[in-house]
């Protein structure tokens, strides 16, 4: 019994540095799984996509409140390929609110990544999405999340955890420029 105990302790003491060494050998393999990771930066932030090209609209494109225009925004994703990136088109909606503000949202549902729809008619929403809103909304057909645009994209129904991601808008004269997208969705 005594001998087993001593041997176990010695074995453990010998094993710890060995395990640490082999553990360090394995760490580069993490970069095998995520090649865009920088060396020795396992806890670093993940690669977020960035804008590739701006989209612009004129004031006159929005003749009345609740004008909703679909657009495609070119977004650059970091990839481990010869170009080091892949450009993806992110579908979006740009809407003029009754208050006069113009807002732009990504159409990628923050729940599980489907592309959601513009539903201007509350009755249509009540029929298809289990919820009757006050006005026009965004509604996702996959898991029935409904977003109220008048309330900053608040989730009024369905499983989505947060409002849809917003595009950064810049107003130059009477031109609206879409210059970037809030990070965090899979395209």
């Amino acid at each position, binding site marked *: 019994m005594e001998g087993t105990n001593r041997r176990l302790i010695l074995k453990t003491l010998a094993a710890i540095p060995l395990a640490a060494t082999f553990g360090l050998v394995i760490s580069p393999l993490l970069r095998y799984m995520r090649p865009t990771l920088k060396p020795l930066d396992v806890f670093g932030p993940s690669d977020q996509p960035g804008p590739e090209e701006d989209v612009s609209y004129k004031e006159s494109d929005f003749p009345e409140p609740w004008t909703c225009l679909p657009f495609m925004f070119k977004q650059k994703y970091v990839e481990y390929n010869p170009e080091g990136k892949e450009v993806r088109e992110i579908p979006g909606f740009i809407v003029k609110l009754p208050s006069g503000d113009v807002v732009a949202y990504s159409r990628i549902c923050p729940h599980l990544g489907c592309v959601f729809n513009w539903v201007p008619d509350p009755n249509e929403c009540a029929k298809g999405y289990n919820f009757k809103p006050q006005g026009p909304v965004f509604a996702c057909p996959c898991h029935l999340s409904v977003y109220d645009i008048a309330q900053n994209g608040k989730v009024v129904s*369905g*499983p989505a955890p947060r409002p849809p991601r917003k595009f950064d808008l810049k107003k130059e004269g009477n031109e609206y420029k879409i210059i970037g997208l809030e990070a965090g969705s899979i395209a």
Partner: protein
Amino acid sequence: MSAVNAAVDWVKTRINNIDIFDEHHREEAKTNPWYSLGPIFYLVWFIVMFTGCVLIMWYVPTKSQAFDSILAIQTKIPFGGLMRGVHKYGADAMIIAATMRMYRMFICADYKPGKEFNIAIALVALLLSMYSGLTGYLLIWNQRAFWATKVFATFPTYMDQFPVMGDFYQPLVKSIHMGWNTAEVLLGGGAAITQETITRFFSIHLAFSLIPLIFVEIYFYKNAYKRVPLSWAKRTIITLMLVVVAIVLPAAQGKRSDPDVTPLPILSDWYFLGLYQMYKYLEPVVATEITIILPLIVVGLPFMDVWMTGAEKDINKRPFILWVVLMAVISWVVFSLLIIANIANIHTDPPYWRAFTYLTVNVGMGLQLWLMWQNKDAVQRAKQWKGALVIAIIGASQAFWAFAYYYMAKVEMFRGPMFQQWFYGVVRPFLPEPEKLEAAMRACQPTSTYFASTYKTDWQEWVRDNYVVKGGPEAQAALNTVLEHCKLTSPVDWMVTAIPTFTPEHPKYLGMVDYLVTNRWAYDYVVFCDRMNPLTKIETTTKGVYYPLPIPEWDLTWMIAGFVFMIVGFWMTWHFKSGAQPAPKPAPAQPASAAT
């Protein structure tokens, strides 16, 4: 040291009892055809690998050509359609065989005695076939595959909301971005489904078959087991079944994938459909947790059963397992049918299936307790305290969720805010003038405008940017009151002052008040109190409906049942344990099966 030796022995026995493809059940297989499922699984695995080796000669794993190469295999290559059909239906057959084998193991108690690990091995086989299926159908590069992969890659990102491990408590710990990193690893090192994703899935698709094959072959060789103990007639019948299905129902090709159009209804392969319906009903973090916890429960069930019924193998005497199995089968079938028919009312359905899930398991727990009560044998009766305790613990966790759910349903606040406001409520008596702080917070942001969203900034900044700028001088004065209040000290400051914030302009918390305000825990409490109070008349997202909301009647059934089982279970644990005293030496050498 003897405890260590006992543990080592315990593990060694179970490793020696490993059974991968029912090779230890050849006697039972002569009378019971369900014991052929293991050999069938292995046989079909070989058929799938053979057809896969044929398909690999023509398949092109690139974004532009994948779909067309499948089309070419289907139409231009001789017997290509047949090969692809057998490959696809063979993969389905493997999943069917693995699933049915799993149920058989539970019903026939193949994990007894001392074979509990076999459930875990069967589950790994099932999961590997499912993931091979998932990686396989992206290779077709059609609409269904693309969108199923998108859902599959997005749900791990919710791990970033898990307590401690994720971004959820970002002010408290530096995040390791576990969810996002998992998604990137799955997709080939980026946040989009691209060429890298196809390459990675293609290699994983091969690796998931070939690497386990090596281990399985070593195992069979070392132990000299017969590989596929089926007669040639049976082998031919199974192969012909696959061939006939592949000819009658050629494998579908679908539409070329389009990242801009979501198909409706969004589906995946049939074995994930039940999970898809669950994702409609549940908060995504919870759905992700359940997806991870389900396999762990399956691995844990045999242990629970052994604690409850010892070496008993008769399914009639193991009602707990029987009813858990029934619950699993019915939920899975019903959920799958519902999503295929695209039926879901996410607001009114959940109480029904919650009640169904809990109550079915509760029926099993009740019958099990009743059987224990009927047992007249004094020695066995004394041993049953373990089983009663397991049931009591299940009842207690159900009761805990019932307690939490009661408040969550009333005020529509989720677990995080609920825990945070509860913590605030506990430390509130130690804080200086909490009423003044709460009144000032109400003045900064009216509680009717609260909505739970993940936020990455301090509450003070969030309120200043979103509400105080519109609120005018009174709101500004209220915010100043809150900021002044944050500087006050309290006897519980020691709990938080050591926590780093990782924000340079605010490196340390000034005290408990500062901590609670900055992380919004104090505001969660204010909102909770206002929503629980019917006099404040806070409107929900539906017009004309006010907090607190009523609890759905069907939920009350399982909530009450949880408390009942907790009390009865603990009482019976105590009863059996105290009843053990007068028994003359409960001989430990005699197993329970020998006594019957």
